[in-house]
Each structure stands twice: as C-alpha cells, then as structure tokens.
C-alpha cells in the first residue's frame, strides 16, 4: 500500500474537521478525494504531507509513518498545494533549479522525468514565475513537485480556478505520471473529475462517505436515479415531479432533471405518468448514479 489512513480524526476547537477516516491506496493508483469546499480535504492532505498532526489515528505515506518518519516522507513525496507555491520573483528555470537543489538533485539528473510537462513552459524559461498564466504556473508547480522523482504525488485542488482546457490537459498529465508508476492522490471539488480517477473517496463534513470505483457507485436504500430531459424549460416540470409522491424527489442538474426514487416507488407507474405528460422532446430513463447524485442523496439524508 502506498498510502494508508487509519481512523484519522482531527478537530479545530469545536469544529470536527475529520471524523474517523480510513482508506488505503495501492501503489500506482490515481485516487481522487472528492468533496465540496470545507469537507476536510485540505486538512487530511496536510496531515498526510506532515504539516499537521492528527488528534487520533495513524497514516503512512510511501510506507512511512507520517508522525515518526516525516523526514523520510518529505524525501519521497511530491506535494502541490492549492495555491501554487512558486517564487514569483524567480524565473521559471530558477524555480525549478531551486526545488531540485532543495531535494538534493539536479535538473539534468531528472530532466527526462519532467520533460513532458516542463517542455510546455521551457520556451519561457527566463520569464518570472509571477508573470506566467494560470495554466503555465500550474505546469511549473507540477514540474517542481516532480523534479525529485517522488514515489507519491499529492495534489490539493490543483484544478481549482483553472480554465476547462487547462483542466483537461492537467488530468492527461496526471494520467501520464501515473503510468510512470507514481501513486497520485488528488483532491477536487469538481464532481465531473471523479470519472477520471481509478477510485474516488467521497468526503463531506469530515466524514468519508464512500470509497469506490467512480462507475460503480451505488446509492443507499435502493434509491434509483432517472434522467429527465426536455427541449422545453425543465424548471416547469420540477415541482410537478416532486408532487407525484412523497418518496420522489427531483433536482436540477444543469439543463436536465435527476429524479430520485425511494424503495417504495413503483417505477413502472412513474414511467407511465411521465410519458403521459405532453413534454417536448422528452428524454426519460434510468441512469447510473453519478458522484453528484451520490452527494445529492447524502445531503438529503442528513439535512443541516
């Protein structure tokens, strides 16, 4: 196991940031920690990267205990914080060189390792890091985090605030890094990025809700999800669907409606009812629950 987390608990005063979190990540996996802002993602990462001590529980990274062998971990791990920690007044090249030396290596030694990513920004080597665009800063930060060939790469919300094209590009890079045999642990508030991970951990209000392959998520209590699409105004139908049955709930997801049905709902009847409405260009059918559906259901189950 490349990363193990056992019963990690952490409180800040009265706020319980993490409650009894346990999971493990095998070597070479791309693991996504997904949850809304304030779910505890950053706190968990700060414990794993040896910046914070947990109140209870144990964790290991690259086989070493985060508390006892933190020095060893710092050599074997690459960490990219949410805000890219680059020196704005140093050039691209100087930043990379600096991080290489700090990790006791040189650019030349590991150039081929970061080449794929670094070659994108190499033409701007002499530019100050502060003058790079967001996407380029991200690539430089990633190069700096990889220059010492870490065994585990931990990235805290690397795609927050980055445009859609750069996000896509970034995930491609993560896949490549994973193929080099590096374990990648990444957190994100974007639910749609879940599908790009081998496995995801869903975290909310300090609780780990599930750890699963993103395509095999199962909703609890036999809940099913139907998609309702129309070329008309979906909002007009939202209340109508909700009024059908106490156990039927509906939410807007972009321009379509996701309908959640409890265990006691007769799906056949629901089907007929919806089909009988005069809906322009109706698209209707059962769907595999997405990460978003999963969070939606959890939020309904435990209201504030």
């Amino acid at each position, binding site marked *: 196991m490349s990363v193990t987390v056992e019963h990690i608990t952490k409180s800040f005063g009265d706020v319980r940031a993490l409650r009894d979190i346990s999971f493990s990540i095998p070597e070479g996996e791309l693991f996504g920690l997904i949850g809304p802002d304030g779910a505890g993602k950053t706190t968990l990462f700060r414990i794993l990267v040896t*910046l914070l001590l947990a109140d209870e529980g144990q964790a290991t990274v690259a086989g070493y205990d985060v508390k006892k062998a933190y020095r060893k971990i710092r050599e074997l791990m690459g960490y990219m914080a949410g805000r890219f920690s*680059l020196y704005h007044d*140093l050039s691209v090249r100087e930043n990379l060189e600096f991080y290489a030396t700090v990790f006791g290596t040189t650019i030349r030694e590991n150039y081929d390792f970061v080449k794929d990513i670094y070659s994108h920004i190499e033409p701007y080597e002499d530019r100050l890091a502060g003058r790079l665009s967001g996407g380029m800063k991200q690539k430089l930060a990633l190069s700096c985090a990889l220059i010492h060939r870490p065994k585990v790469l931990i990235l805290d919300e690397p795609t927050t605030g980055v445009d859609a094209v750069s996000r896509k590009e970034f995930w491609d890079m993560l896949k490549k890094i994973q193929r080099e045999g590096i374990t990648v642990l990444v957190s994100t508030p974007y639910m749609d990025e879940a599908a790009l991970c081998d496995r995801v951990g869903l975290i909310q209000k300090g609780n780990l809700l599930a750890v699963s392959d993103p395509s095999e998520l199962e909703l609890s209590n036999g809940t099913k999800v139907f998609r309702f699409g129309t070329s008309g105004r979906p909002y007009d139908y939202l209340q109508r669907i909700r009024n059908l049955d106490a156990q039927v709930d509906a939410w807007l997801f972009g321009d379509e409606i996701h309908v959640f049905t409890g265990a006691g709902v007769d799906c056949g009847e629901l089907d007929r009812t919806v089909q009988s409405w005069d809906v322009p260009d109706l698209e209707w059918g059962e769907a595999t629950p997405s990460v978003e559906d999963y969070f939606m259901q959890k939020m309904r189950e435990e209201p504030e």
Partner: protein
Amino acid sequence: MRVLITLLRKEFLQIFRNRMMLPIIFVVPVIQMVVLVYAASLEMKNIEMVVVDDSHSDASWRLISHFEGSAYFQVKGSLLSFIKAEDMLLSDGADVILHFPADFEEQLINTGATDLQLAVNAINATEAGLINAYCNQVINDYNQQIRSEWFGMDATGRMAQMEISTAYWYNPLLDYKIYMLSGILVIVVTLIGMFLTALNLVREKELGTAEQMNVTPMKKFHFILAKLLPFLLIGLFELTLGLLIGRLLFDLPIRGSLFLLFGMATAFLVVALGIGLLLSTISNTQQQMMFVAFFFFITFILMSGVFTPAESMPEWARKINLVNPLAYFMKAIRMILLKGSSFHDVAREFYSLLVYGTLVLSLAIFNYRKTS
C-alpha cells in the same frame, strides 16, 4: 552546504530583483543621515526676544544692545507693557521676555545689585533650558563688564572670585551633530536589519512558499540562516555607508577601532534580525508584522538615548533598557566612535548583545519549528 549556497543565492536574487530594494538600501541612509542630523538640531539660533523696559536707563539699553549683538538672539523690539509682551509669548511671536523694572539702574548704582525678569516660553522644556542658559551667558558677560567699569577692575577681574573654565572632552566644540550622527547610524542599521528580515519571511508565509519549503527535506536551520545572512551583510553595508557619509559630510570622528565597531554591529544585528524573525514567526501577514515591529522600533529608539541621555532616565526606564538592544549599541557606538573606547570598555555591552542574540534567535527558530 550546497543547499545553503542555493538558498543564499535565491535570497540575494530576490533582494536585488525587488525594485524597491536598491532605493531602500542606498537612499534611506543618505536621507536619514543628511536630513535628520540637521533637523534634529539641539542648537538654538534666532531666539526671538521681546523687551519690556520700564527703567529706560543707560544700563538697560546697554544690556539690550548686548543681546542685539549676539548671533543667537533676535530682539524684536521694546514694548511698553508686560501684558502686551505676554500676548506675544502666547501667540508664539516671541520665545522670551526680558523685563527691566523701573528702578533697574537706580538699584544697581545704589546697592550694587539689581533685579531682572526673564519669562521663557517653556512648552519645549529642552528649548527653554537652552534659552535660559544663553540669556544667562549674555547677562553674565554684561555683569563682568560693568563691574570692571564701575569699580575699576579690569575685565578679567582680579576680584576674589571663582572662575570656572570648562573643557568639553570628546566633543570640544559641543557639536551636537556628532552626537546625533552616531545615534542615527544606529537607527538606520536597525531599520534595515529588523524590518527587511521580518518582511521577507512573512512574505514567504503569505505566498505559501514557506509551507512548501517545510515539506521538503531541507533543514529549517538552513532556511533561517539563509534569511539572516543577507540582511546581516546589508546591515553592515549600511553602517559602512553611514560612516562614510558622516566622515565626508560632517567630519565625524572615528577614534576607536573599526574592527571593534563592526564586531559590535554584528552582535547587535544578530539581535535585531532575531527580533525581526521572531515577529515574523508570530504574525501571519505583513500588516500584522509591520504594526508590531513598528511598536517595538519606536519604543526601543526613544528609550535608547538617541536624543536624551539614557543614564538620566528614571530607574524603571533604565531597567526596561536592559532588554533594549538599541540602548547597548547606542552606548557602544558612541563610546567607540567619539571616545575611542577599547574592547575592554564596551565588553559589557558586547557580551550582553551576544547573550541576547543567542536567546532571541533560538526562540525564533524554536517558534518557527513549532508553528509549522
């Protein structure tokens, strides 16, 4: 070692790439040395005097002309009533009233002694003391003169009297500039040492790079050392620049050993840098840091004896000065520069600073470790 060199190179690159840095390093000391020395003058010129002469006598006119002849006084004319003169004092139109009573000359001739009133505006006590002293000097001169004229003695006076002749050691001409210069040198060195270091580390905290450094295998000791050394060098450079300005522009004496002076400055800078680092470990933003640093800076400077002798402060203030690094350095720099004191004379200051520096630095490093 390679890491330390890289860290140092990075710091210097950042310092000299900062567009504000070169002006701060070169312009601040020049302005402080040149402008402050003239501005913080303890010399009084153009004391505005208004005269109320009720005696209208030969004796009073002669004393007034003595004042008129003095470079320090500007006699703004005579008034008939003391009340009017008081108004002038109130409206800041005069610094001092010289009042002759109606029987000024009569008394002088008949009894050999007479009265004279001086009313000094004492809003600024130091200024008032100086005005009083200057006035007394003029009046004494006049006194000597009439003694010799009226009683037939020559001006040097063979009359039985004690004559005090004063020699001002270490500053024979009582040139206040030399005193101020040495004080301002201390301010310049402290300003650069304490503030720049603190700002530097807090900025890394704000940017998040300090945290990023913490997850690398780099030793924190190296990180801190790389923050200290550049500013120590810049601090010593400022001292050199200040001494040069003092020497060239104000003929500042450098009587003691330069080696000793720089040794003392190094010990002092370790304390100042240590305080800067400590402040930056307890603050999270540059604003917080600046506010706290400013508080300490102003307090330390005013207590250090830059304008007023620290020895004449009340007992409790002198106790506080035990933890004021500026007080030690202020005393030592003046002793070395003006008196030519040897190491033996300033050993107490040197060792105090050394102990102080070790304590503050350890605390700063310890605190930095704890918070991260």
